């Protein structure tokens, strides 16, 4: 059992989710409350990373993260390090790949916050940010949980992009998904099965608890 890979996957998923949380909130909220021409195309743009096969997307990311490309150069200038084959690189790739899962559920949730309730919050003197934390967040909670769980889970299972950009370096970019894949490739079905089972059970319990707790916490709208 490759525990390092497990740890790494959880770290990767946690970072990805943590980074996508504010992005999802900001972009989702903005898309929910503003109607403009071409809004549909902005939404489409966010979903686009999904249409490419992960390995191919990974390859294009590999190229754009390279030291010769603007993103890679920028990163190099700031951190003195390359993006490719680094933990930072797979986090960034994951973030891009998971954009739609983080943004869409949040957007839909914001869309259902009644306008009057927000207005009432303003009239109660709640600033935009307090309205967000005290009124909107509790109301969009189920959507937010959905977004975060989907992002987390999808990152855990992600393989093509991470493999391509990360290079499966032990202890740095070799996630549990890659480790399981490796075992399958090596026809080591027993190890693959054991790792899969551990992953599935751990995920099942973790997700189940998250949904269970999130669902119990005041199910607004459901009665």
């Amino acid at each position, binding site marked *: 059992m490759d525990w390092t890979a497990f740890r790494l996957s959880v770290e990767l998923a946690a970072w990805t989710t943590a980074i996508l949380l504010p992005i999802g909130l900001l972009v989702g909220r903005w898309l929910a409350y503003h109607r403009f021409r071409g809004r549909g195309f902005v939404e489409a743009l966010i979903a686009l990373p999904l249409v490419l096969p992960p390995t191919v997307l990974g390859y294009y990311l590999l190229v754009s993260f*390279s030291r010769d490309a603007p993103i890679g150069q920028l990163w190099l200038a700031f951190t003195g390090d390359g993006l490719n084959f680094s933990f930072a690189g797979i986090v960034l790739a994951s973030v891009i790949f998971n954009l739609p899962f983080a943004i869409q559920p949040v957007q839909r949730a914001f869309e259902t916050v009644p306008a009057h309730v927000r207005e009432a919050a303003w009239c109660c003197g709640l600033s935009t940010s307090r309205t967000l934390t005290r009124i909107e967040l509790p109301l969009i909670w189920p959507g937010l949980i959905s977004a975060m769980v989907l992002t987390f889970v999808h990152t855990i299972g992600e393989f093509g992009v991470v493999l391509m950009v990360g290079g499966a370096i032990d202890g740095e970019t070799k996630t549990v998904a890659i480790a399981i894949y490796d075992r399958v490739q090596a026809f080591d079905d027993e190890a693959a099965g054991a790792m899969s089972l551990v992953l599935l059970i751990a995920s099942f319990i973790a997700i189940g608890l998250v949904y269970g707790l999130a669902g119990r916490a005041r199910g607004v709208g459901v009665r």
Partner: protein
Amino acid sequence: QQDRPVIAAASDLQFALSEIAEQFEAETGRSVRLNFGSSGNFRRQIAQGAPYELYLSADETYVHALHEEGHLEDGGILYAIGRIVIVAPRGEDRIVDGSLVRLRSALDDRTLRRFAIANPDHAPYGVAARQALQAAGQWELIEPRLVYGENVSQAARYALSGDTDGGIIAYSLVRGGPLAERATYALIPESAHDPLRQRMALVADAGETARAFYDYLQQEAARAVLADFGFELPDTP
């Protein structure tokens, strides 16, 4: 922390190289980290500066190309020549013979359901498989029945899945390891396809251990293991 280089190796080396690495560690006390995967992916990643120190490709053209681009120390050396086999799940050797005659008859009496090879568009073993089928004059006939693995080990999976009647895969995969007892196979003559020339090279700025391993791979002990897993050993590097 000790220097533990990452070695990028073609997936047909899956079993052989693992054994060599163990011997290497036992003998020298140094260890390497093995990454098996598609030679093509490694070629791209090395071109982007992947921190692999040694590259064992299943296709020597990738080594030449990387060398030309200046990512490798030198042109490397030829370390093995791959062979291919026709396999089927153990006990179902209806189509298994090296001359592909039985395959032909299964094709003729339309009892062949599916047949697995690696994708000949990019996998070296897929190319060899196609050449062998072409040489036997069966390509046109069998093409509609083919399923393609992304690489040779996926093809092996298919070949032994029970939903195909077999396939053509690397000899190295069935010589040892877990597939040996699950498969029945026959070697396809070398003459049926272009030689699968496998070349390795040190990546620029490779460290001590990688160099040592590179050297070790050229030693008799390592060559014996490769031979044991069904690779032909080239005389000339």
